[in-house]
């Protein structure tokens, strides 16, 4: 029982990341009909927002280290600490959550610029061309990031208070040995909240209703005198923000490096296909499902039985789904079934 619960928990945080990225991909595909291979790069940009914020907060001055008395020793101390003492230290500690505030406007801007500057010229082109141009864009973004931040992963600190592990076993009334890192729990909750927010926005606001109408029948909504294009652009920006947030919060789990976007991109595409192209609930469900499946496949008992299965399980599922049921788990009938 413990083993099963811990595997489910393990799958949830990764699944959360998959679900968030896949949600953004599906939004872009459902509204604009764009297959965006640069979406992984947006995830990575979010992560590097966190890195930048951390770097900015820890801009340091060299000050005399008073604890060393034999000779003149210096150490780097962040300005924030010099100015505000303990408050400054706390702010630095909370750099990852703080980056969310920065990441939202930055990623929204990136999304709008990307859509207006590039994507809109590709509505009428084939999917292959869309893939190619966004693939090129992904390379460009990735290399720019590498130019500024180097090729090595940059670890991110998390606030002291959530750095330990939660005693999940006691909470659920199972054995005491069942512990799980707080941050991953937070990540899962965060993902749920963001996903819930996006769905609520689409479901319960007039704006979202119009967007959904546009997804179903763009021309008719346009004929009713609504500037559907602008709304779709904003939805694209929203997708970028979601990907960015996923990236920001994922940095403590996985130290960001310049190719993390590409690594996640392929998986998220697989997730989208498994969920069904254009189906938002499908993307989310498939994200969590595949995350959990992957963590079960990496259990030792299963690996003994089927060696190497943890590496390929997701792709295997995708292959089977595409071949047997191309519209995915929750795709609408007739959409992208060729």
């Amino acid at each position: 029982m413990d083993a099963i619960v811990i595997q489910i928990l393990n799958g949830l945080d990764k699944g959360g990341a998959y679900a968030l990225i896949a949600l953004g991909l599906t939004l872009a595909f459902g509204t604009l009909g764009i297959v965006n291979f640069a979406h992984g790069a947006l995830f990575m940009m979010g992560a590097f927002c966190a890195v930048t914020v951390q770097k900015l907060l820890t801009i340091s001055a060299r000050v005399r280290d008073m604890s060393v008395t034999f000779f003149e020793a210096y150490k780097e101390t962040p300005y924030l600490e010099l100015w505000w003492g303990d408050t400054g230290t706390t702010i630095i500690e909370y750099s990852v959550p703080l980056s969310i505030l920065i990441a939202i406007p930055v990623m929204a801007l990136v999304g709008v610029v990307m859509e207006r500057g590039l994507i809109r010229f590709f509505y009428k082109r084939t999917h292959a061309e869309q893939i190619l141009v966004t693939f090129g864009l992904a390379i460009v973004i990735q290399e720019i990031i590498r130019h500024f931040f180097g090729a090595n992963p940059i670890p991110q600190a998390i606030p002291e208070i959530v750095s330990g592990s939660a005693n999940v076993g006691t909470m659920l009334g199972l054995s005491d040995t069942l512990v799980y890192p707080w941050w991953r729990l937070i990540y899962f909750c965060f993902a749920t909240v963001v996903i819930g927010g996006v769905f609520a926005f689409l479901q319960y606001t007039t704006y979202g209703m119009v967007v959904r109408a546009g997804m179903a029948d763009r021309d008719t909504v346009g004929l009713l005198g609504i500037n559907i294009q602008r709304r779709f652009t904003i939805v694209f920006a929203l997708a970028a923000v979601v990907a960015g947030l996923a990236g920001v919060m994922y940095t403590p789990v996985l130290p960001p490096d310049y190719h993390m976007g590409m690594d996640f991109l392929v998986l998220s595409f697989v997730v989208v296909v498994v969920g069904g192209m254009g189906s938002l609930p499908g993307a989310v469900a498939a994200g969590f499902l595949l995350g959990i499946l992957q963590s079960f496949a990496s259990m030792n008992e299963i690996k003994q039985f089927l060696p190497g299965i943890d590496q390929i399980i997701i792709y295997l599922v995708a292959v089977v789904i595409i071949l047997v049921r191309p519209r995915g788990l929750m795709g609408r009938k007739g959409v992208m079934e060729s």
Partner: protein
Amino acid sequence: MSIQSTRKDLLIMAVFTLAVLTMPIWLDPIGAAYPDLLQKFAIFGIFAIGFNILFGLTGYLSFGHAVFLGVGSYSAVWSFKLLTMNVIPAVIAGTLIAGVFAVVIGFLCLRRSGIYFSILTLAFAQMSYNMAYSVLTPITNGETGLQLTQNDPRIFDAAAETTGLPITELFGMKLSGYPGFYFCAVLLIISFFISLRIFRSPFGLKLRAIKSNQVRMNYTGFNTRPYLLAAFVISGMYAGLAGSLMAVTDPLAGAERMQWTASGEVVLMTILGGVGTLIGPLLGAGLIKYFENIFSSYNEQVLHEIFSFLPDLFENIMVFVVNPFVGEGWHLTLGALFMVIVIFLPGGIMEGWTRLIGLFTKDRSKPDNNTPASAKAQTSEG
């Protein structure tokens, strides 16, 4: 008509053969005439030609073609390890085993088209790549890569006593440096010839028809899938051949050759040169490998020397601007260039060439040039 076009093809073949074999001479002025780079031109040329048979003719965008490259490399190295250092069995093994892989993968992937096909091939590529690193380590030697060792069996050359690692050879001729290049060049010429024949054949025409309208093909009574599968397997075998040639020039195989970004590279080459043209993919492969070589060797000092004719301030500005694009940032240039090509010149260099020709011959044949020549460039011969 047919006699004329045969003559024209003969001419193309003759010029092409001459151009490839004299590459060490005419590439000398631009500093590209050394064996390592020439071998790369030939190998990636073969890879791109093969990819073009699938993507250029049928329009099926495979994002997992590097698998066949990797499989070809592994098979060739195993042939060196187990059989002999002669390259003929290695090349044959690489091509055939890649072909077998292509049959299996193609049979499954070709059940879907469009983006699903791309994602299926991508999924297979990632599976192979991950498995090469984990479960298949006994065959692939994992992260170290598959290498020759002195105590490999090599049942056919057991007699030869050597110290140090053996070198690949063709009936006693050592295939390193220029002989290696000429071996690749001969295979490139053969590959090009086959591709030319495919382009001119009814089979090639059917593949083009699939690209332009598969539904209509089906309605006219064609079962398109065998044709697609044949194209897929042929292009997989080209990739296997290229992979085994990589092992011939440097007997080492690693799984990073199978990563999906490597598949992306051949897509870039094909698009850059011109999808669906005969010679375009070769041009693209050559250009990318050449500039990779040139650009990645630049660093800040070299740039300062290049711009030293400018006043100091401008020199520094220029170096600052150009620096991110060279050296390690070469991929940035590649990505940007690729975007520009896809946006403005979807037919690649060959389309640009046709347009250029169109500009100069405008006054002579007006009616021809007023048609949207750009789209037709894809079907014009190389």
